[in-house]
């Protein structure tokens, strides 16, 4: 009885969560770890081949380039995502007091996320298409400027922008919800204490957003590391390998070349990188301290 009092409630609250994750997330994770040591291909046979996949990966002529792209892509997109998400949320919750205007702006920024990915990417493609039929080039030709082919000349830039615009809305929503939860009297006190607008942002809003900022940063970092959908649709990793990132490479290996074993090995490398980065961030953000004890015994 006493045992139940102590453990019953956490168990009830956490049970479905743990169960679901254990079966549909944790177990698959173990499976793909095993998979990385097989040479499973389209025949879908679990034949172990030891470290062969990793040896191949090590000798892969493109791997270094891909790693660099991954880094560039993740870092820049992440910065746009978090910083811009923050700016947008502060503008729409603190600067613009008129709720309807804020909502309008937030909605616009959500549009990319709410559109079907293919259509969002098609919009970019239509705009940036290198022929004279691209909207950008149409406009440029009206202004007597030559056509531009951003997708070939700066594929990574386009990839980062397209992903940045989508990612910003993620932070925007979470942050603005969190800002809305800040009690008004804190702003009042800060004003009385002589805070300018900047310092209210810096001293009151941002510290109150510590958890969301930290979460969004870490989560987006991992999301970006593992995401490839928009790149796949936008540039397919090309031209050449110029916008190929590790996760896309894993996808290409697994689902275009049907080398599931190799694809899993690539994914595992990704996971190791993610593990290291997460660990560093966990420390940097002082996550442990943000997990507080219950004040009901």
């Amino acid at each position, binding site marked *: 009885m006493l045992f139940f009092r102590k453990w019953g409630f956490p168990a009830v609250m956490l049970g479905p969560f743990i169960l679901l994750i254990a079966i549909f997330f944790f177990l698959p994770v173990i499976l793909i770890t095993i998979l990385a040591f097989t040479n499973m*291909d*389209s*025949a*879908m046979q679990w034949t172990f081949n030891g470290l062969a996949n990793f040896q*191949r990966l090590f*000798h*892969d*002529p*493109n791997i270094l380039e891909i790693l660099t792209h991954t880094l560039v892509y993740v870092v820049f997109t992440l910065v746009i995502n978090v910083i811009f998400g923050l700016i947008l949320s502060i503008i729409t919750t603190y600067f613009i007091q008129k709720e309807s205007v804020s909502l309008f702006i937030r909605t616009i920024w959500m549009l990319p996320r709410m559109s079907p990915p293919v259509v969002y990417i*098609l919009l970019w*493609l*239509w705009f940036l*298409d*290198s*022929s004279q*039929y*691209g909207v950008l080039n149409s406009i440029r030709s009206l202004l007597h400027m030559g*056509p531009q*082919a951003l*997708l*070939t000349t700066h594929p990574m830039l386009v990839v980062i922008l397209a992903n940045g615009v989508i990612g910003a809305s993620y932070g925007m929503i979470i942050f603005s919800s969190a800002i809305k939860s800040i009690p008004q009297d804190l702003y009042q006190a800060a004003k009385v204490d002589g805070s300018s607008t900047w310092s209210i942002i810096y001293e009151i809003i941002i510290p109150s957003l510590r958890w969301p900022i930290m979460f969004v940063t870490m989560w987006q970092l991992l999301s970006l590391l593992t995401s490839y959908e928009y790149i796949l649709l936008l*540039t*397919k990793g*090309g*031209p*050449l*390998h110029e916008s190929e990132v590790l996760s896309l490479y894993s996808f*290409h290996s697994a*689902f*275009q*070349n*049907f080398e599931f074993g190799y694809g899993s090995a690539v994914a595992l490398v990704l996971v190791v990188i993610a593990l290291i980065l997460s660990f560093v961030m966990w420390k940097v953000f002082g996550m442990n301290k943000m997990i507080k004890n219950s004040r009901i015994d």
Partner: protein
Amino acid sequence: GNQDKGANANANAKANEVVVIKAQTAGAEKTRVDNLVKAAAQLNAELKKEGKNTTVQVETNDFQGSWDDYAKQFMLSFKAKKEADIYATGHDNIGWLADGHYIQPLDDVKKDKAYSDVFPTLWKSVTYKNHTYGIPQDTEVRPVFYNKDVLKQLGWSDDQINSLPEKVKKGEFTLDDMTKLAEEAKAKGFVQYGVIHRPVDGPDFQEMAYDFGAKLYDAKENKLVLDKKAVAKQLNYFYDLAQKKLIPDNLTSMDWPSIHKTVVNGKSLFFYGGIWNVFNWSQDNFHDKLGKVDAKWVNDHFGMMLIPAADKGGKAVTLSHPFVYTISSQSKHPELAKRLVELVADPKLQAAHDVSTTHLPVTKKASEEPTFKNDITLGKTTYMLDYTTFLPNAQGFPTYSKVIFSAIQAVELGKKTPEAALKDAETELKSSLGDKLKVIE
């Protein structure tokens, strides 16, 4: 496997068994499976005659999505024993399907009289490790479209224009001639570009390899082949086009609609297309003024020819990508499925499908169907089947194709010389294909 949707035990003494056969195809051409439904009607009549208490019911499914996803779905559903009995797919999938024991050999179906008059080359496309694993369903060819209006501007007579395909066929008009012609048209300002090809990876690029005499697959060793000499020529060809500014700077980053618009509006003299493009252009507003254009308009303004031979007197080529029926190795009713596949070869069914989707038939009989013969585009291109080539069926070919495409892209963008591109391609192919690759110097 397929399930029996319950035996319909009537009060009648004779219980009638309903057998469900599932058939799946991908893409918009649903007639590929709908024809099977019609064939089932025929089959049922035959079964009745044979006095069997079985009724076949075909359940169809048309997958929409990429070929990769189509393949993936089949693998998974097969493992879950929920796959289709009759799986229609591109012939080039036969390799992995057979290797993975997903499908069964259909050598006996090949022998059936329904398939006795198949264009012989087509059997090549469905043969893997000395067995016939698929039955051709339809095919197409990938001609070069040439703009008649531009040729007229260049001073060509109607006769000259209309006999061009013939000259190509005979090897009189070579790839070099084609390039020169493009150069001329561009220099004179009649067109913006000389040549347009597809913007993304695809079989079209391999037809150029064949044109330069490449071998892509060694059936004996079951290995993909990197024929370095031919590939070098292939790369040089595209490098040359780019250097001469005959293709748009960023062709490989254009989207499909822009390609179609460029071609339909006569901004390019040549276009490496496929016969189905005629159908595409009738579906959307690609023409700046006319919007959608029908087959007649296209034939009035464009001609279609084989890919000109690389050398004078050489063999002009094209490439086909036949669609085939395969039968799952887990099928519970393989015999019925096979009979369906035999019955679906009916010329009328074929012709109906081919005309509505702009494809070519696989049997001679079908090509003689009046409805087919009357088709303005198809009738004119069927001869190309005699010049056609196929992609290898072997596993790993998508990887091969992707690497070659990258190399082409690199030379077109001027980022690599053909030599460097070839070298990189070789390294990459060796790394990813390992012992599945054979390199010919």
